[in-house]
Every structure is written in C-alpha cells, then in structure tokens.
C-alpha cells in the first residue's frame, strides 16, 4: 500500500478538483471544506514522503512505475529528497493560500477551488515525474489552471496582464515541445534517467542538435522561472492576480528553477564527459542579470504587490546563479545554502503576497477591485460592493500583528539575522568565498549583488511599511482573522526554519549529495522492480 503513496499527491487534488466541478457553484462552503481536506491530506502525504526520503539517507530514492511497465517504456514517477521537499513546500503554501481565499476571494468568480486543486495537481506532477513529455503535460495542467486563477475576479487590469501572461506561456510551451522532440529525435528517449545514461554516448556529430534541444528546453524553463530577459511579463501578472493566487504563484516560478536544477545536475554535472558543465556560464550570467533587474525593479516600485513580484524574480535569479556555479563545479555547499534560501524566500514571498491586501485596504485597494468586479458581473451599483466584506471574525490587535508579520517578511527577504534569509545568504557567501579561486570575477559580483539586494529590499519595503503603518492618521479598517492567520502560520514556519536550521540544512545537504550522485537516479529507474518498492536505502544499485 505504502508504495502507492508516491502517486497520491497527483491523485488527491485531481479527484477533489473533479468532484467539485459536479457541485453547483453556490455550494461554496462544501467546496471549501473539500479543498481543505484535500490540501490537508496532501500535506500529510508530502510530509510522510519527506520523512521516508530523510530516513533513507542521501541515497534514498523511490520509483513508481505507472501501469507496472518496466522502465524506460513506462512513465515513471520519482521521489527523492528534492521532489519531497518541493511537495511539502507546495502543500504548505497551497493550504495557506486556500484558507486565505475563504475570506473574500473565492466568491469573486467561478470554480476557484477546482482550478486551485488542478494547479496543485500540475505542480505535484511536475515535481514527481521522471519523464520529459510528462513534465510538459503537467506544466500544461498547471498553466491551464493558472490562466484561470490569474483571471479570477476579472477586471481590466487582470485581463490585460492575463493576455500577456497566456501569450508568453503559450509560446514557451511551443519551445518546450520543440526541445522535447529534438531531444527525442537525437537520443530516442524521453525518460530522464535513460537520457542521463545516453547523453555521454551521443556521438560528437549529433551533439549540436542535442544541445539545441536542451537550449530550447532551457528557454522554456527560464521563462517560467522568470530569468531576466524573459521575465517582463511577470511583475504585472503577479501583481494583478488575486492575493491568494499571487501567494501560490510564488512557487510557480520555482517549478522552472526545479526543472533546470534537476535536468542540469542529472545531465551536465561535472563527470558527464563531453557535455560537462554545459550552460553553466549562461545560467550564472542570467541569474546575475535577473538579480540586477529585480534590484532596479524593487527600487522603482511604488506598490507592495509589485515589490513582492520582484522579490520572486530576485529569489529565482539567486538560485539560478547558484545552480550555474554548482554546474561549473562550485561545490555542493553553495547549492545546499541556496536550496535553504529558496525554501525561506518562497515562504516569505508567499506571506508577503497574503499581506498585500489587508495592508492596502485603507487605500481603497480592495474596495476599488471589488467595485470593478461588481461592475463586470453587473451586480448593481454600490449596495452589493459594500456587502463584500470579508467573512469571519476580526483579529484582535490586527494591525499590530500585520505589522509584525510584515516586519518579519522584510527581515527574511533582505537577509537580516536571525531568520532564514540571513542563514541562506550567509551560507552562500561563505561557500562562494571558500571557492573564490575559480572564476573570481563572477563570484565577487555574485556576492556583491547578494549583499546589495538585501540593502535595496530593505529600503523599498521599509518605505512601504512607513507609509502603511505610520503614515496614515485615520483609524484602520479591521483585519480579518482568516486573512492574517495563514500569513502567521507561514511566518511561524520561517521561525521554525531558523531555529531548526541545522536539520533543514542537513536535509538540503543530503539533497545536493543525492543530486550529485547521478548514478542512483540514472540506473535506479531500470533496477526498479516491476511491483515497485517504497523508498529503500540505496534502492538504486548501480547496474550499468
């Protein structure tokens, strides 16, 4: 029974989402509870998988052969440290955003909860699959759901940004397909583990085609990850999306980062012969450029939503640069710290997106949005708009809590002690300094940009904080418990992350070790027995 747990993160949201389509859209309470059950189950399953991966040590890797066909014919699901980590992150962020949406947003349009479940399904599938074409399919599932969620609540700004978002992502999907088919044309397989075995054996003459395939694939992932020249769509789209949607979109960019990390470590890591370290320089440069772009963007932004969107770009740019350094042989410790930083910054940006709305309610931010929505749905003039106050009790001392949450988010994103942002950045800089012999200029500029990014973030966010909490004289409108609670939980998790930083860092360290030990992944799939076993220590005995 336990081995089927691997596919549960895909099946649970799929079934829940499909079930909810059968309900009438007015049964919102039922839908909410169903999604909550699904989200909770998802979190439990993800944590269980994480514990199993952790218990199995750095070599622990589990395979699930769909339909019980032998690899590489079968579509295979793979769970290892990295996937388990991403699953837990998705489930946590998803649950927080789900609870937040209960306050206002789920009423602003149709099928919110179904779309949300399908988004979770696509995310989980993308993290679990061990097959390039399935990666494409799950990307499309999560993108299709994200188009719906992005437009949720409608309104001119959202539709306009959504149009750009969809057009860019459709073009990216086509590039993805081109890349996948080129790789298939050269190597004859789409299974990632099989590819890892075949890539070193591809004859010199066919390598340019293969590289072209991977480059196209890389462009598609970089668009998703929001790397610099491909990220101009991102701030507008994320800013105009509804708050809970923005929060869960914080992990959407990480799917691109994850795919790049997974594929490049598997295929172009140091020992993989002729194509070793391929693309490392490009990743470093694009990462540095994304950080720079995010710096200027953050400074130029006047609204919290836009700053949060640039924080997303900043975080994925940092991780991309570190992946580049790791590919070029920068040592695992830097990547370990970067993964830690990624978890922290994803949770913090998610929380920040959740804070945008309660913080800007006084400015008429949400009132204006709701008025627009009511206008679109033709639900009358003002009476209906006024009625759209959030559900649930108000939070006692709401504004104080809000400012504390905001302050902690600022600390994490700018990398001040004692929170995860600081520990992650410290680790990255420490490893970079230890490694400064090679490619010194890039390393030094990375360190400089990292420090500068913290400084810039604190300037921009402090400005917003002062305007919101100190600058207004009127009595603030009440803050709803349902809206602050998810952000509080995310922030509490950040606190736990810094208290337990040693354990988390050990886990990410094991993740990096597992990524560097390619043979377990590359040969494990083929030795996975047809009836599949749960994660075993050293399940993938190398059998070339």
């Amino acid at each position, binding site marked *: 029974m336990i081995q089927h747990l691997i596919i549960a993160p895909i099946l649970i949201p799929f079934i829940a989402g499909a079930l909810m389509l059968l309900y009438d859209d007015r049964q919102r309470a039922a839908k909410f509870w169903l999604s909550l059950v699904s989200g909770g189950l998802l979190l439990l399953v993800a944590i269980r998988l994480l514990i199993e991966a952790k218990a199995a040590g750095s070599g622990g890797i589990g395979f699930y052969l769909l339909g019980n066909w032998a690899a590489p014919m079968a579509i295979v699901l793979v769970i290892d440290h990295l996937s388990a980590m991403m699953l837990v992150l998705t489930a946590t962020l998803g649950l927080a955003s789900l609870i937040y949406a209960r306050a206002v947003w789920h009423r602003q349009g149709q099928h919110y909860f179904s779309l949300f479940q399908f988004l979770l399904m696509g995310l989980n599938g993308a993290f679990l699959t061990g097959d390039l*074409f399935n990666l494409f399919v799950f990307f499309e599932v999560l993108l299709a759901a994200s*188009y719906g969620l992005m437009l949720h609540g409608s*309104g001119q700004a959202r539709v*306009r940004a*959504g*149009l750009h978002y*969809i057009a860019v992502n459709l073009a990216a999907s*086509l590039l993805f397909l081109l890349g996948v*088919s080129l790789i298939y*044309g050269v190597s004859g397989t789409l299974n990632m583990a099989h590819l890892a075995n075949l890539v070193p054996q591809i004859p010199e003459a066919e390598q340019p085609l293969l590289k072209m395939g991977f480059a196209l694939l890389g462009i598609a992932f970089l668009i998703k990850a929001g790397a610099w020249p491909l990220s101009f769509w991102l701030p507008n789209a994320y800013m105009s999306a509804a708050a809970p949607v923005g929060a869960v979109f914080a992990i959407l960019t990480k799917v691109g980062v994850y795919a790049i990390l997974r594929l490049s470590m598997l295929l172009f890591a140091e020992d993989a012969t002729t194509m070793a370290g391929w693309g490392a320089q490009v990743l470093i440069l694009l990462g540095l450029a994304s950080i720079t772009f995010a710096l200027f963007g953050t400074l130029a932004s006047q609204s919290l939503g836009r700053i949060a969107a640039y924080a997303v770009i900043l975080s994925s740019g940092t991780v991309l640069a570190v992946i580049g350094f790791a590919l070029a042989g920068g040592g695992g410790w830097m990547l370990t710290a970067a993964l830690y930083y990624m978890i922290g910054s994803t949770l913090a940006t998610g929380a920040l997106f959740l804070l945008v709305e309660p913080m800007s309610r006084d400015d008429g931010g949400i009132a204006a949005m709701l008025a627009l929505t009511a206008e679109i749905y033709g639900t009358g003039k003002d009476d209906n708009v006024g009625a759209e106050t959030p559900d649930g009790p108000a939070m006692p001392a709401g504004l104080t809590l809000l400012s504390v949450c905001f302050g902690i988010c600022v600390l994490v994103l700018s990398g001040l002690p004692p929170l995860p942002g600081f520990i992650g950045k410290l680790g990255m800089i420490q490893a970079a300094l230890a490694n400064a012999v090679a490619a010194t200029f890039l390393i030094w500029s990375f360190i400089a940009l990292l420090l500068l990014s913290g400084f810039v973030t604190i300037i921009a966010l402090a400005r917003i904080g002062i305007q919101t909490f100190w600058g207004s004289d009127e009595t603030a409108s009440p803050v709803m418990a349902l809206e602050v609670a998810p952000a509080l939980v995310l922030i509490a998790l950040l606190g736990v992350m810094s208290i337990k930083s040693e354990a988390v860092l050990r886990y990410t360290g094991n993740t990096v070790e597992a990524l560097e030990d390619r043979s377990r992944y590359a040969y494990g799939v083929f030795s996975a027995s047809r009836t599949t076993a749960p994660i075993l220590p050293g399940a993938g005995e190398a059998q070339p």
Partner: protein
Amino acid sequence: MELTLSFAIGVLTASGIWLLLRPRSFQVIIGLCLLSYAVNLFIFSMGRLTLGAPAIMPKGGFIDPTRYADPVPQALVLTAIVISFATTALFLVVMIAARGFTGTDHVDGKEREPQ
C-alpha cells in the same frame, strides 16, 4: 519529401513568429496557431519520415522494427494537438474579454499614441 516538409515547417514558423510579434491580438492568435502547426509537424518529423509503414506492430513473433514507423512521436503529436487546441481556445476567450474591457484589439489594451 524531407525538403518539402522542412520547407513547410520553416514557412509556417516564419509566418507564425512574424504574426506573433504584431500588435493586434487577432494576429497574435493566428501566429500562435501557425506556430503550433509547425511544432506539431516538427515533432512528427522527429520520428523520421517513413512511407506507408504502420505504427503498430503485430502481436508475437520476431519483427523487424525498421519496417515500422516510430509510434512515440505520433502519440506525442496527438497530445500536443489536444493541449494546444485547448489552450488556444482559452486564449481566444481571454482575447474577447480583453476586447470588451478595453474597447480595442491592441495587445496592450490601448492604442499607441499618434506621433
């Protein structure tokens, strides 16, 4: 045959990209359609071109795989067609909504100011 196919893919891609970069949303969607046709043909060609070869092998016995067409790209193309069809339909709806909101079919939602 190879030349014809690659020429067709090239022309479709070139026109698709040109249309994609145009300012009108109708041109953009036609461009995306053309691009997706080109991509589908490209995927198909990655299984190598064969004439009159079935993609499904008979059951049992020894078979010579060179006499059969590669079934994988055909399956991939089918999936790709369905997905791009669905997303294009969705895009069309968003486009019409944008037209309704902004009153213009410019992709930015507003006309460029006259010089």
